[in-house]
């Protein structure tokens, strides 16, 4: 009966058991949600944060940020496409992952999140990027030949119209999508917070602040990631950094960090006031 258990897992759990101080339930020696579940919210946070940064340009007309508008959108898309991978690798049965979409359980925050994620990817991000790049794609389709012409043609969804009215429509459409996109980005990452915050078995997670803390952390990591990529890319392309843009973005980053820090601090101040017995759910008495 023992043969099926990997030796490495046994050693790992034995080591963890030796580290336990106080008392925890015997089944809880194994850390169920480990590093992969830490990486995942970080990546989704970057998606939401980068999109919110991009929306500053479109919706709030912060002209200074214009130079990194497209970079922010593409950062969001790039991380969105890989965000699911840590989740997938973490599953006991990755080959059954599609069941979340095919037989979802409505009361499960995790199942409903699948649809929030899909909505954000297909209903917001891809549409916004398509309208933003349509003009370029049509031009590329006209210039190139052979297979690439077919590829660009398909990417442009066979639209060819480059009249001023059509371009104007692109701008309007992407603005509308951004306006829908802001609450969607908030929903995307706030919901990640809710998945954790709704677990009442774990008082360290079970907090109404959780979605907002997640959201502010998302904005912090998203803005910082776009800034970082912008600086690295400028170095690689040997371009001069637009300091006016960086200053403005840095200002938003600072504000976001202050709000995020304040929320975290509130949480930490609140807990000793309530003075839960330190690890009340798992009966740990340390």
């Amino acid at each position, binding site marked *: 009966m023992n043969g*099926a258990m990997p030796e490495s897992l046994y050693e790992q759990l034995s080591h963890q058991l030796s580290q336990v101080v106080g008392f925890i339930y015997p089944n809880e020696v194994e850390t169920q949600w480990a590093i992969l579940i830490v990486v995942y919210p970080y990546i989704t946070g970057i998606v939401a944060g980068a999109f919110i940064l991009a929306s500053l340009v479109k919706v709030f007309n912060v002209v200074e940020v214009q130079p990194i508008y497209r970079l922010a959108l593409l950062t969001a898309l790039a991380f969105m496409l890989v965000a699911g991978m840590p989740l997938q690798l973490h599953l006991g049965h990755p080959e059954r992952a599609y069941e979340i979409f095919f037989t979802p359980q409505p009361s499960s925050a995790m199942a409903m999140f699948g649809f929030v994620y899909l909505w954000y990817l297909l209903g917001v991000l891809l549409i916004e990027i398509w309208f933003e790049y349509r003009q370029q794609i049509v031009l590329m389709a006209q210039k190139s030949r052979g297979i690439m012409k077919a590829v660009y043609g398909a990417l442009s969804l066979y639209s060819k119209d480059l009249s001023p009215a059509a371009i104007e429509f692109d701008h309007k459409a992407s603005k509308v999508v951004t306006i829908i996109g802001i609450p969607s980005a908030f929903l995307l990452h706030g919901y990640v917070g809710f998945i954790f915050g709704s677990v009442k078995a774990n008082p360290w997670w079970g907090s109404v602040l959780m979605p907002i803390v997640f959201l502010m952390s998302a904005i912090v990591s998203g803005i910082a990631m776009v800034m970082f990529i912008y600086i690295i890319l400028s170095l690689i392309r040997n371009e001069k950094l637009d300091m006016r843009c960086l200053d403005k973005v840095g200002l938003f980053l600072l504000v976001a960090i202050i709000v995020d820090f304040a929320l975290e601090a509130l949480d930490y101040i609140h807990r000793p006031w309530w003075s839960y017995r330190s690890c009340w759910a798992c009966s740990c008495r340390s």
Partner: protein
Amino acid sequence: MNKRQLLKDALLFFPAAGVLPSLVAEAVASVEPAPSPVVPGYDPKSHWYGMGVDVGKCIGCNRCVEACKAENGVPEEPFYFRTWIERYRIHADGEVTVDCISTREGQPEQAEPEDPTVVRTFFVPKLCNQCANPPCVQVCPVGATYQTEDGVVLVDATRCIGCRYCIQACPYGARYLNPKTRTADKCTFCYHRITEGLLPACVEVCPTEARIFGDLEAHADRLVRFHRVNEISVLKPDLNTEPKVLYASLDGEVR
């Protein structure tokens, strides 16, 4: 996670993309409810199972734990339990120490030296509380864990995707990820036995009758009587999970 594990997981992950053609057939099939693991002639609607545990009677012999592991094929390593025994020791200064006596591997070589500061000690058998309002069922994204009509929470191992949300959501630590099936696993009240009129393995072997199994909705039943004559408490009642494992003479220290 080490490299080997990552590669192994990747091997599982990439073929997963190839399942698309079978999705439609699977989706049609999965609309039907899971096949009921029930013997013919058994009516689940006419039962509502629960268990009584008399803390004062438990002597901490661990036979229930061994019987459970043998009956249900629970991995023998001390990280996987469908039921386990906790030992509480109350010291003269009011301090409480808890340990799980089921995690010890093998028999102790010699008796533990007596600790003069301990004024009282008792054992608490733990298992899935088979909550009437189970948080694990609420969070399962694919409906693989479900409550039967007779009030037992089960896991469909052919449906479970191994996301472990239910393990996180259980306030009683009653679930684990089975390393063999890579799906969530837990106490079933020995569903394969009780639907045939037998007792769960842990109840069957308990030498002091510290565990009582029965039907909470029956007119005359040992568990109903147990409920009536004892002062009953449940674990973590404030979480509104409505446990159906009822404890008699449970100390307030136990959580």
